[in-house]
């Protein structure tokens, strides 16, 4: 097989490991409740403070996968994609490859979570639909005390 020119540019290589701007997520009662309701939870710890406290939590609990919502202001939406970390590609289509949530502590209403994303790897593959870039990301979520509560490892495919 002849070696074709790489999709991975020097610009992309330089972006690996670089951290994006921190994004602040607020976790509140309404957010926890709405998320829990949308997944069909019936456990009251996701809805009622008294129930959560009776089970030893600080406040209403954020369900697994919920780390609060970022503030989105129309016209001022924060650029959160990997392009904000410094690379461009001509590949237009995107697939979410998957997610991996690792928790180190509880997340509760009242928490202010700071999320920082970085690209952990960029690989190149030849897929059924042509050349693909497989981009792995790692987002670290710290709470207001500075503790890392969750690491989200994700990936997406540009093709």
């Amino acid at each position, binding site marked *: 097989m002849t070696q074709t020119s790489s999709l991975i540019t020097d610009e992309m290589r330089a972006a690996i490991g670089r951290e994006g701007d921190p994004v602040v997520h607020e976790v509140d009662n309404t957010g926890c409740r*709405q998320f*829990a309701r*949308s*997944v069909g939870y019936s456990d009251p710890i996701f809805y009622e403070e008294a129930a959560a406290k009776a089970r030893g939590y600080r406040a209403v609990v954020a369900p*697994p*996968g919920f780390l609060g919502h970022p503030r989105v202001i129309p016209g001022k939406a924060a650029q959160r994609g990997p392009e904000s970390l410094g690379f461009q590609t001509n590949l237009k289509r995107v697939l979410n490859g998957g997610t991996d949530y690792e928790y180190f502590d509880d997340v509760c209403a009242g928490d202010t979570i700071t999320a920082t994303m970085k690209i952990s790897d960029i690989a190149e593959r030849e897929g059924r639909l042509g050349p693909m870039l497989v981009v792995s990301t790692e987002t670290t979520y710290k709470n207001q005390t500075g503790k890392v509560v969750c690491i989200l490892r994700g990936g997406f495919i540009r093709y």
Partner: protein
Amino acid sequence: MAQVYFEDVTEGQEIPQVVLPCDSQRLVLWAAGSGDYYQIHYDKDFAQGTGLPDRITHGALKNALLGRMLHEWVGEKGRVRRFACQYRGMDHINKDVTGKGVVTGKKTENGANIVELEVWTEDPDGQKTTPGTAIVELPSKN
């Protein structure tokens, strides 16, 4: 539901499944709950304009359903430590998504009772559209 304990769990054991009917109301609830307002999940014309037959269920909702299944299984004294999945196949609107899991291992690590699982969601034809893995902590009877 009764609390499950570390000692009760064996490799190969299936955990209770969860079924989520994913109609348009569910997908709109999730759009609001997650903040993902991409129209392929609730606007039929938009979805068809991108070449899809109809609206599709959010991948992240399937992931969250796996989180719910694990939370409900580990009970009040357990904790969901880690859950991961890959979005391999589409699930279509007005179909049930079923979350399932099987225990693949157990160990005690730094005093914590850890159980590892294979987890996934299935469509009504039994296709595993969202395969994954999970790690939970369970209480001990001792």
